[in-house]
């Protein structure tokens, strides 16, 4: 099949409609792998949800995990900070190596791991506390500050990094639940940043947001890439094309294809990837 005959890919569509957002540069990371998944296999009870996933999450890059619903992309994301531990029936096999250490090793403290690998969820979930308290929550429980002024500083810089400071600085003591959906999601990002993580996991962070709030979050992801390694699960192929450098396509619990985002969207090696990104299934 020649390249002229195929339909415009999601990547090209994204490029056409990407006037409002910055196109992700092909690669700006350090070229080192931050987290390495080796033969990651997950069972929910009897049902196997992931089959031998091997993947390198590159440092200071955005890795997008795409695939149809139920393909295991969220499951894999939640393995990266052991959020699956909370689910009783879930068992994880294989290794996930972060800075040379398997995070599923017995002597790893999951509390410390989650401080290093922060998470932003599908639905904005600010705590029913003030904006300030929402951001201060992480630093408090990890004892990152010695006094109030240090905490104030962390709150301010986190909100600034999350692009929420200008909107929130006059209402820090008002409840975080009173913000709009997009603001709430940026508050959740600020909350995650406040613990100074190395990796930020995002589980469909824009699926509950309108296009304008989505564009803001996507811009934010671009900025955050400078300092953090980001893995993002998304249902929107345009979004994956816009924000990520690497893309991993999951299908039925298998990692089908993983590579440079541009390559995945313009010249996929696997037929299933081709089928998914051109909208033939999924």
């Amino acid at each position, binding site marked *: 099949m020649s390249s002229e005959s195929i339909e415009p890919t999601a990547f090209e569509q994204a490029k056409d409609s990407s006037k409002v957002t910055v196109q992700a540069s092909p690669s700006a990371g350090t070229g080192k792998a931050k987290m390495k998944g080796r033969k990651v296999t997950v069972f929910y009870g009897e049902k196997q949800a992931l089959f031998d996933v091997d993947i390198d999450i590159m440092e200071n890059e955005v890795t997008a995990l795409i695939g149809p619903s139920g393909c295991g992309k969220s499951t894999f994301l939640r393995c990266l*900070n052991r959020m699956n531990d*909370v689910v009783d029936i879930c068992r994880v096999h294989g290794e996930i190596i972060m800075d040379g250490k398997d995070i599923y090793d017995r002597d790893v403290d999951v509390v410390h791991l*989650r401080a290093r690998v922060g998470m932003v969820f599908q639905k904005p*979930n600010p705590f*029913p506390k003030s904006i300030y308290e929402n951001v201060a929550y992480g630093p408090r429980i990890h004892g990152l500050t010695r006094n109030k002024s240090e905490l104030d500083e962390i709150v301010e810089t986190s909100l600034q990094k999350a692009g929420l400071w200008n909107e929130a600085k006059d209402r820090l003591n008002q409840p975080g639940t009173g913000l709009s959906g997009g603001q709430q999601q940026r508050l959740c990002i600020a909350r995650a940043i406040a613990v100074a993580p190395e990796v930020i996991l995002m589980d469909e962070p824009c699926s509950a947001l309108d296009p304008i709030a989505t564009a803001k979050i996507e811009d934010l992801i671009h900025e955050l890439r400078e300092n953090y390694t980001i893995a993002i699960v998304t249902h929107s192929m345009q979004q994956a094309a816009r924000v990520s450098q690497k893309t991993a396509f999951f299908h039925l619990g298998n990692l089908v294809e993983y590579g440079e985002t541009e390559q995945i969207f313009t010249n996929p090696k696997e037929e299933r990837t081709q089928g998914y990104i051109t909208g033939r299934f999924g």
Partner: protein
Amino acid sequence: MFGTTALAILVLAIVGFILARGFATSRAAVDGTKLNSLPSYYGTYVALWTGVPALLLILLWSALQEKVLNTIVMGTFPDEMLAGMGTGQLQLLLSEIRSIAGGRIFGEPAPEVLRAAEMLITMQNSADYAMIVVGCAAAVLGLVFTRSQLSNDFRARTRVESFVKVAMILCSIFAILVTVGIVFSLLFESYRFFQMVPWYEFFFGLSWEPQIPMRDDQVAGAGAFGAVPVFLGTIVVATIAMLFATPIGLLSAIYMAEYATPKFRDIVKPILEILAGIPTVVYGFFAVLTVAPALRQMGASIGMDVAANSALAAGGVMGIMIIPFISSLSDDALRAVPHSMREGSYGLGATKAETITAVLFPAALPGIVGGILLAVSRAIGETMIVVMAAGLIASLTVNPFSAVTTVTVQIVTLLIGDTEFDSPKTLAAFALGLVLFVATLCLNVLALRIVQKYREKYD
């Protein structure tokens, strides 16, 4: 007689149903006709209008029959004979006539009385037959009239639905009216009490001795109606109960909601809720026969004097009774906190304990406070345990080892035995009841408002 009439009306209603449904079915069978409603709605419409008004009529009839007959019978006596009698004597005469009419003759009744009794018997018989006739006539009338209304586009469904709607409105009005009636009787009797005893004495007086003489020759105290010791006793017992129930209930709720495996939860939660199903009398036994002697013995062994019916025993057992209230409502409140809150907190590296204390507990706090307030109002209003296990003498003390009395206990003792509803002793019960009612009402309203406010947050 009432039963027979009711049965007859019911049969008529069923007949009406069958007739009307048959009419509708036969019409529907004709090609091209379009009925407004399903056949059973036509049936129900006719049955309702046949049965309900007639039944209401005979209910009213039987309620009024006795009164009307009494008036007629008493009217036969010459005026000069009744003129000298008080209400009590008139009542006596009437009941004599009634018992003679019922076939129970004592002694030698006066000829006028015998005549009146005979008259009563005849009137009763004819009244009973009249009731059957009137009831059935009303039912038949309803049947014939509604049957004649039926046609292809008669809106039977709308009519039936509005009938049901009206019935539901009447039921809720009935419930409201009963409540209002109770409140007004409390208010009215309390007003009479406060005419005899000044309100400042009742609310601020420090001495409670309501056992005033009811007859002139009775030896009793002079009577004092200062309710402060009673209120204080109630507060002491309720506080002890809450001190027991709140921590135990809350911690078990947290365990159930956050730590317990689903299997453990499924077993233990129903067991905990059985506590709420134990009759309070049984708790009363437990307090009197087990807890109070044990406390007394423990006190004696360390040289402390514990009253046989101490506030601690009553309050402690009451606390056990209240545990399921608090644990169940707090459990619900904790589990109502969205799962995303837990994930958000865990995702930041918080431990389970940190998540519970810093996120879940504050989020669930309104629900928990609401539950606790409901439990408090339950503790204040609880009667049986304190009647059995707390004291009767009102003493002005907050010592949990001494005997205290509560508002509910006093109401019970004031109204037990021979009572006369115009002495301040009896009326004091109503004043206490009013105070109790207002206090629990305020607590319940407050609790419901808090719980409601909390609900708005996540829905």
